[in-house]
C-alpha cells in the first residue's frame, strides 16, 4: 500500500485544519483534522505514521499490517444521534459533500412548506402544501456506468434502511421514500422485502434517463414539487440523502464508526474488460493509480482518467487521492481528433462546467469558436456552479444551434441531459452540425448507449402503494 493522502477539503465549505504533525502515529479513526468553518471532521483511514502535513493534505505512511478495528468516535451523550453523525465527519457521499450533520440539523415536523414558484409548478394549486415531511433517499445512481450504489442496496440493504430510520428520527420526518431506477430490478426486489413492514417507508421508481439524482429532480419525482434553483429540499419539507450516506449514518450510530472509507466503481479501459469493478470500504486517501491496479491496470493507450461520473466528474491523475465523495474512477478510450475544426460548446448545469467542456474540446483537438448556455442553466451567484431550473425537462435548444451555425461551427460538444440532448439532435444534424456529447468517450468505453436521441419514456409505472 502506497502513501495515503488525506485532503483537508473533502466537503462543501472551508478546508479543515490539521491537528497532527509529521511523525505522529495514527490509527484508523484517529481524528487528524477539524473544521475551520462549515465542514466535517477528518480521520485517519489507516494505521501508520504522519509523514507530512501540507497546506491542502496530510500524507500518512501506512503500516504493513492493517487491522480492521478502529478508534470509535466519542460524544458527550451517546444517545445523541445527530452529535454522532456530526462527530463522525459524514458528508454527502453522492458527490456533493455537504456536511451531513449540518443537513440533518432541521426539524422537518415544524418546517413549513415554502411558497412555490407558480411558473414552474403550473399543475399545483396556489398555496399547495405537503401533509407529511420526508427523508428522500437518493438511490438513482444517476451517472451512467457506476454500480456501487445499487450494489450496496443489494448487499447492505438492512444497514441503509437503519440509517434512513435514524435520519427520520433526527429530523422528525414522518415518511421516507427511496428514489431508485426501475431498471435495477434485483435491488428493487430486495428493497421491497426489507421495507415490507415499514409503514412509513415507500419506493418511488425512476425512469432511466439523466439526470434523476439531482437533488431537486428527486424532490420533483417523489413529491411532484418543482423547486427553484435557490430553494433547498426543505422548501418541500424534505431532506435528500444519498443511500451510502444513510449507511454511514447507521455505522456512526450503531458502531461509533467515523467516516473513513468510500465505496466506488472503477471502470473503463482496464485489463480484463470494461465491466465495473466495485470496491466497498476503500480507505479515503488511497491513490487513483492503486485502485486502477487493483482493478487490473490500464489496458494500453487511454484518453483520460475521470474522477467521478462521466457527466459531472473531472479529469484526474494517477497519484490523486480519493476522498469521501469519490464515486467513480473511469479510464477512457482515446479522444477523436477533430484536426482543429471549429467547435461550439453547449454548456448546461447537468454536465461539465465550461472549463471542463473546453478541456474536452482541447483534448479532441477542436477550436472553440462559440459557447452557448442552456436557457435553464442558472448561475445563482456569479461564479457559482450552474443549476438547472427544471432538471431533465428541456427548454428547447434550436436557438443555440442557430447560434452555432452562425458562428461557423462544424462540430458541437454538448453536456446536456437526456431530454436536452434529444432536442439538440432534432435540429443540429439537419443544420449540418456534427454533434458530440461530453460523455461519448466514456460511453463508448463502458459500452453504454451514447446520449443522443431519447427513446424511453420519462414516465414509469409505480409499485402498488410504493411497496
Amino acid at each position, binding site marked *: 500500500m502506497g502513501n495515503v493522502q488525506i485532503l483537508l477539503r473533502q466537503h462543501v465549505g472551508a478546508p479543515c485544519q490539521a491537528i497532527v504533525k509529521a511523525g505522529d502515529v495514527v490509527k484508523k479513526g484517529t481524528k487528524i483534522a477539524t473544521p475551520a468553518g462549515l465542514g466535517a471532521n477528518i480521520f485517519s483511514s489507516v494505521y501508520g505514521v504522519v509523514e507530512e502535513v501540507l497546506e491542502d493534505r496530510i500524507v500518512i505512511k501506512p503500516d504493513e499490517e492493517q487491522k480492521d478495528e478502529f478508534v470509535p468516535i466519542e460524544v458527550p451523550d451517546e444517545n445523541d444521534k445527530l452529535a454522532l453523525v456530526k462527530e463522525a465527519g459524514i458528508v454527502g457521499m453522492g458527490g456533493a459533500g455537504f456536511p451531513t450533520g449540518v443537513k440533518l440539523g432541521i426539524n422537518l415536523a415544524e418546517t413549513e412548506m415554502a411558497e412555490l414558484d407558480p411558473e414552474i409548478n403550473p399543475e399545483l394549486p396556489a398555496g399547495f402544501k405537503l401533509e407529511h415531511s420526508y427523508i428522500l433517499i437518493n438511490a438513482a445512481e444517476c451517472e451512467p456506468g457506476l454500480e456501487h450504489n445499487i450494489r450496496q442496496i443489494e448487499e447492505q440493504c438492512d444497514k441503509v434502511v437503519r440509517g434512513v430510520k435514524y435520519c427520520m428520527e433526527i429530523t422528525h420526518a414522518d415518511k421516507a421514500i427511496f428514489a431508485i431506477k426501475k431498471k435495477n430490478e434485483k435491488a428493487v426486489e430486495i428493497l421491497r422485502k426489507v421495507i415490507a413492514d415499514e409503514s412509513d417507508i415507500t419506493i418511488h421508481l425512476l425512469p432511466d434517463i439523466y439526470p434523476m439524482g439531482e437533488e431537486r429532480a428527486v424532490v420533483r419525482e417523489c413529491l411532484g414539487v418543482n423547486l427553484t434553483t435557490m430553494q433547498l429540499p426543505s422548501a418541500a419539507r424534505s431532506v435528500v440523502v444519498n443511500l451510502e450516506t444513510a449507511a454511514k449514518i447507521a455505522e456512526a450510530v450503531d458502531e461509533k464508526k467515523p467516516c473513513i472509507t468510500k465505496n466506488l466503481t472503477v471502470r473503463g479501459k482496464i485489463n480484463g474488460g470494461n465491466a465495473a469493478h466495485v470496491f466497498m470500504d476503500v480507505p479515503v486517501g488511497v491513490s487513483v493509480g492503486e485502485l486502477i491496479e487493483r482493478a487490473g491496470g490500464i489496458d494500453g493507450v487511454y484518453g483520460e482518467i475521470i474522477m467521478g461520473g462521466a457527466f459531472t466528474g473531472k479529469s484526474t491523475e494517477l497519484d490523486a487521492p480519493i476522498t469521501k465523495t469519490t464515486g467513480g474512477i473511469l479510464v477512457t478510450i482515446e479522444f477523436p481528433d477533430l484536426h482543429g475544426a471549429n467547435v461550439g460548446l453547449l454548456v448546461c448545469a447537468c454536465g461539465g462546467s465550461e472549463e471542463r467542456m473546453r478541456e474536452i474540446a482541447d483534448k479532441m483537438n477542436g477550436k472553440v469558436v462559440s459557447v452557448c448556455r442552456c436557457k435553464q442553466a442558472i448561475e445563482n451567484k456569479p461564479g457559482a456552479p450552474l443549476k438547472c431550473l427544471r432538471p431533465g*425537462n428541456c427548454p428547447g435548444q*434550436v436557438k443555440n444551434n*442557430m447560434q452555432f451555425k452562425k458562428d461557423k461551427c462544424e462540430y458541437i460538444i454538448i453536456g446536456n441531459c437526456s431530454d436536452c440532448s434529444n432536442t439538440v439532435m432534432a435540429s443540429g444534424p439537419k443544420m449540418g452540425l456534427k454533434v458530440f456529447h461530453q460523455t461519448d468517450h466514456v460511453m463508448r468505453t463502458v459500452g453504454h448507449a451514447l446520449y443522443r436521441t431519447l427513446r424511453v419514456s420519462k414516465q414509469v409505472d409505480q409499485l402498488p402503494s410504493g411497496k
Partner: protein
Amino acid sequence: MSITAETAKAHAHDPAVLCCRAEGGITIEPANLEDPAIFDDLVDSGLLNLDGCLTIEEVLGAKLAKTCDSLCPLTADVVEGAKAPSAPVEEAAEEEAPAPAVPAVSAPAAAPAAGGVLKIHIGEGKDIDLEIPVGALGGGNAVAAEVPTAAAAAAVEAAAPAAALEEKVVRTLTRKHFKITDVKRGPETKIEGTTLYIREGIEAEVIADQELVKDFHLEIITPDLYHTYSETIMDVQPIATKEGDDDIGCGVTRVLDGVVMMLTGVDEGGVQIGEFGSSEGYLDENIMWGRPGCPDKGEIFIKGNIVVQEKTNMERRGPMAAHTAFDIITQEIRDVMKKLDDSLVAETQELRQVRRPGKKKVVIVKEIMGQGAMHDNFILPVEPVGVLGARANVDLGNVPVCVSPLEVLDGCIHALTCIGPASKEMSRHYWREPLVLEALHDEEVDLCGVVFVGSPQINAEKFYVSKRVGHTVEMMDADGAFVTTEGFGNNHIDFASHIEQIGMRGIPVVGMSYCAVQGALVVGNKYMQYMVDNNKSESGIENEVLGCNTLCPEDAVRALSMLKSAMAGEAVKAAEKKWNPNVKSSNVELIEAAYGKKIALVENEQSLPMSQKRKEKYD
C-alpha cells in the same frame, strides 16, 4: 427556447410548435412550446413546415395525443381538445410583437382593425379625449391609414383653444455666410474678397502642437483635383466662428461657404485611423457628395493629412491629438473671419428655435460614440466645431447632455467619429442635422430639445447611461421620442436599451440607425416597434463610402411620420424577417400620398465612379 405564459399570450395567434420532445397525454403548456420569433429562420432553412399548424391559443390546455419530438408543429391530428381560434386583434398581434432580431424596417401605417377606434389623447393640461371611429375617417387600407393622422391633427387644432397654440420663438441664431471661391497659400492667413489665404509654414506649428503628431501635410483640393488619392477621412468640418462673446447656439455665427476643413490620417506604420473600414482612396470615389456630414460637390477642401505616432491610431490620445493640432489652422481662419467686414456677407440666415405649446412634445436622443480611441466627441466647444472649451464625451462619463436644437446646428459637437465611414456622423453632420431641422420645422410637433448620450465601452456603463436617458425623457413629459445612433454593432446594445428605457415609460419611441444587412440588430426588446433604417447602399452594407448610410432628410421625414402614427396610437406593421429595401420605398410613397408632397431621395454609391476597393470587396 420554451416560452413563458406572457410570451404565449403575446403570440396567441402564432403557430404552436413543440420546443422539445413531449409525451402523449400531457397537457400542453407554454413551457412545451418554441418561441415563434425564430420560426422564419427555421422555415427558411427547411427545418420547419408550418402547414396546418394550430395556433398557440388553440393548443394551450389541450392534450397531446401522441409522443412528438422537438420542433414538431402541432397539427389537429396530434392535439385533442384544441380550442376554437378567436379573431386576431390588430393591436395585440402587431404592437406587442417582440423586437425583431433582423434589420428593423417597419411600415409607418397599417390597416386599422375593422370597427376599431382611433384614440387620441391631448395632454398639455387640456385633457381632451377624442374617439373617432376609424370607419368614419375612411381608413380601410394601408395607403389610407396615414390620412387619419392628418385629419386627427386638424381636429385637434379645431377643438383646442386657439390662444394656447401660438408658436413661441425661444431664441434665434443668425448665420452670416461668406462666400469663398478660391483658397491659396500666402505669407499670412487672410481673406481678400472671396479668396482665402492660408499662411505658408503653418504646418510646422501643427506638428509642434502635439507630441503624438509626427507629420502633417496641407493640401488644397479644388474640384479639378477631386481624383486625388487620400488617406482615410477622419472628419469634415464647417469653418465657422462666433461673433463677439456669443455662445454656441445663439447670437451670430459667421461661416465660410464653398470650403470645408477635411482631416485625414494614418499612423507612422501606415495604418488608417479608423475602425470597421476606412475611406482611403481617390476622393471622388469614396465620398458620398451632399450627405449632411460630407462635402458638397464643388466645394474646396482644406485637407490636412496627419501622421500620428505608431499604434496610437487605436488609442484615445492619437485621434485626439490629430483633431486638436488640426484646429490650429481652423482657429487661425476663425480669427481672420471675426475681422471681416459685414459688406462681404453674401447671405444672412435666421434659425429659430420654436416651441409649439399644445402640439405633441417630442425629444431627439442622439447616441454618439464614447468608447474611446476615435470613438469620442468633443461637446460644446467655444467655437463651432472647435476644440477649446469642449469636454470630451468619454470624460463626461457618457451621461446624457441636454442641448438646444440650435446648439446642435451651431456645431456643439466636434466629432472624433466612429466606426464605419458610411455610417459615422462627422462634425458637419450636426451642423446640418436633418432630423433636428425637420422636427424644428414640422408644425405638427413641439421639439423640446436634443439629448446627446455617449455609448460607453462596457455593458454595465451602457445601462448606467441608458437609465439616465429614461429618467431624462420622463421628466420632460415628452409625448414621443426619437433615438438615433451612428455606426453599428457594440453601440446597438445601448441603442436598444435607450429605446427600452423610454418605451417602458409609455412614451412611443422611433429608433433610427443604419441596419440593413451588415448592421442588422443583434439585440432587441418589445419597445423597438418603430424603426427607421438609414441605409442607402444598394446591397445594404457598410461600403466604406463616406457618409453613405447616414441619416438624411428622407429618413427624418419617415421617422417623423412614424412617430406621429405611433403617438396617435396607430398600429405599425412588424418588420419583415429579412432586410427589404422596398419597405422604405413604399413608406415614402405612403407619406407622399398622405401629405401631398414629393420626397426627394438621395443618391447612393452607385452614382460614384467605381473604385478598385468597391469592385473587389463589395459590388
